[in-house]
């Protein structure tokens, strides 16, 4: 089936982003929010269409493999959380004084969202690379939006490592093109030679590049500084969405089964390392960043044992991690600085949303985090990989202690004397937090049918 809404999914946010700089600072966030809600509508419509049949679109009228094909398949349903989190992040940021809601800031977010849309629907390796660059550059820009000293350096290190990854990915795409003569994913998949060093170099290169973009241990060193110094609204986009693009790229890599053994070990290492690093952090946003590394590790491990479980987990985790970062942002906003001890006392709603998000991040049954984790544990057991199943649960225990520690810091420590007057977060911050927290539980409750839909 083909529909004009598929290219529109990519065009709307980009058009919105291109037009934003012509507006005044007052109207930019409202315009951004409107464009993103429209994109969310298109994404939901396309997901509805997907139930009957995969939606594919030949750009320019040239049928694949000659022209570029856009394809809306199960992985592309990631467009829904992308549009949702981005749409909620823009109003959330109107309160922070950081330049997130200047016309240029909103343009970066909108074009970044467009880049992500293009990335998830591209069915052509080079188009995938180009939109990967669009979302990466907007990600580097997002990190640099913070007024904090050192944000520039964190953004530069992220850019350096991210671009090296992109270079390796482009080299691999070039190699695949040399080996198969075509760039269309399905076509390349069929024409792949069945072995040979160039093929392994290409697949290894793609995997390594995407693993770095997904901040999997040991290639994660850029993530903590970048996500901690970025403004909170933007950290939600970075940690919830942009890190997942690496995983979606990995899922698009042909011939991944050659690397299953590697993925299992790298995933398990990232799972444990992320959790242990998170345990020793004393800053909330750095802890959340390392918790992302841990959950991404779980997903990479899941890729090798139960692909559907991994896909379900990144979809749920996007919403969960976004709500956690927004809650953290609300605490920091009310505390006026990164020292957020005791701010939760006068912010019961935000604290409870943070607690629900924490429970979901750990993966306790009714919440979204459990569905994916459960399927991956089952997959690991079926594959006879007992050690890894135990590691997944151990990681969850460590993460639980991390989140508990910060619930204590936020809600059980006395707040310093000078900050008596803190009150609940403003409504424009609370609504996004609660929408995302409610969704992270709602997604969990419909876990079964949702996994069946993803597994189709």
């Amino acid at each position: 089936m083909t529909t004009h809404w598929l290219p529109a999914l990519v065009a709307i946010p980009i058009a919105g982003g291109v037009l934003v700089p012509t507006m005044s600072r007052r109207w930019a966030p409202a315009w951004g929010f409107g464009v993103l809600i429209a994109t969310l509508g298109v994404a939901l419509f396309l997901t509805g269409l997907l139930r009957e049949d995969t939606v594919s679109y030949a750009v320019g009228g040239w049928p694949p493999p000659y022209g570029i094909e856009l394809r809306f398949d199960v992985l592309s349903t990631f467009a829904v959380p992308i549009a949702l989190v981005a749409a909620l992040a823009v109003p959330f940021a109107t309160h922070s004084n950081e330049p997130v809601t200047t016309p240029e800031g909103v343009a970066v977010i909108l074009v970044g969202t467009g880049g992500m849309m293009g990335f998830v629907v591209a069915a052509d390796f080079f188009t995938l690379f180009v939109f990967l660059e669009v979302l990466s550059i907007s990600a580097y820009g997002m990190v640099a939006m913070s007024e904090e000293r050192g944000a520039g350096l964190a953004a530069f290190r992220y850019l350096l490592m991210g671009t090296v990854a992109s270079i390796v990915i482009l080299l691999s795409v070039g190699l695949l093109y040399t080996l198969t003569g075509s760039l269309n994913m399905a076509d390349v998949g069929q024409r792949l030679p069945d072995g040979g060093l160039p093929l392994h170099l290409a697949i290894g290169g793609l995997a390594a590049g995407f693993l770095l973009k997904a901040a999997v241990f040991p290639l994660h060193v850029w993530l903590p500084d970048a996500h901690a110094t970025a403004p909170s609204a933007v950290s939600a986009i970075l940690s919830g969405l942009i890190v997942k693009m690496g995983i979606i790229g990995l899922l698009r890599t042909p011939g991944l089964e050659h690397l299953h053994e590697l993925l299992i070990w790298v995933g398990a290492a990232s799972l444990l390392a992320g959790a242990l690093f998170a345990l020793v952090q004393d800053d909330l946003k750095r802890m959340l960043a390392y918790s992302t590394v841990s959950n991404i590790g779980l997903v990479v491990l899941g890729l090798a044992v139960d692909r559907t479980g991994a896909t379900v987990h990144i979809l749920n985790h996007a919403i969960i991690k976004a709500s956690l970062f927004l809650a953290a942002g609300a605490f920091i906003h009310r505390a006026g600085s990164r020292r957020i001890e005791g701010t939760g006392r006068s912010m019961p709603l935000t604290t409870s949303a943070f607690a629900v998000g924490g429970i979901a991040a750990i993966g306790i049954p009714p919440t979204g985090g459990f569905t994916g984790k459960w399927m991956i544990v089952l997959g690991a057991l079926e594959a006879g990989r007992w050690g890894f199943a135990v590691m997944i649960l151990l990681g969850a225990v460590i993460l639980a202690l991390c989140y508990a520690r910060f619930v204590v810091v936020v809600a059980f420590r006395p707040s310093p004397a000078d900050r008596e007057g803190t009150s609940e977060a403003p409504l424009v911050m609370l609504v996004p937090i609660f929408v995302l927290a409610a969704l992270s539980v709602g997604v969990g409750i419909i876990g079964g049918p949702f996994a069946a839909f993803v597994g189709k």
Partner: protein
Amino acid sequence: MTPLLENLDYAATVVLLLIGLWTVLADSNLLKKLMGLNIMETAVFAFIVTSGMIEGGAAPILGPDAAPPFMAPIPHALVLTGIVVAVSTTALALALLLRVHREFGTLEIDELRKRW
């Protein structure tokens, strides 16, 4: 090793790529790292362009006197897009470097590690 002599062009691009990678990893100045990054990018573009070459091939410009065999045109289109991607990443990186310099006063890593 004889096939390597035939694919000398590919080998050259790999050498360029590795020189760039070495600069990115080893150089202590952030601006030099950025130059290393650009060298890596141009190396990959060189690889893609040479992969499209054909013996005695003419430029993919169809005209009255142009005769086949032609170079594969797709690599050229890819590299054109790649170069633009490279320049925009570099421009953003340079802007970030200016901010780093304004905040820390230096672009040398050893100094930066001390001051941050």
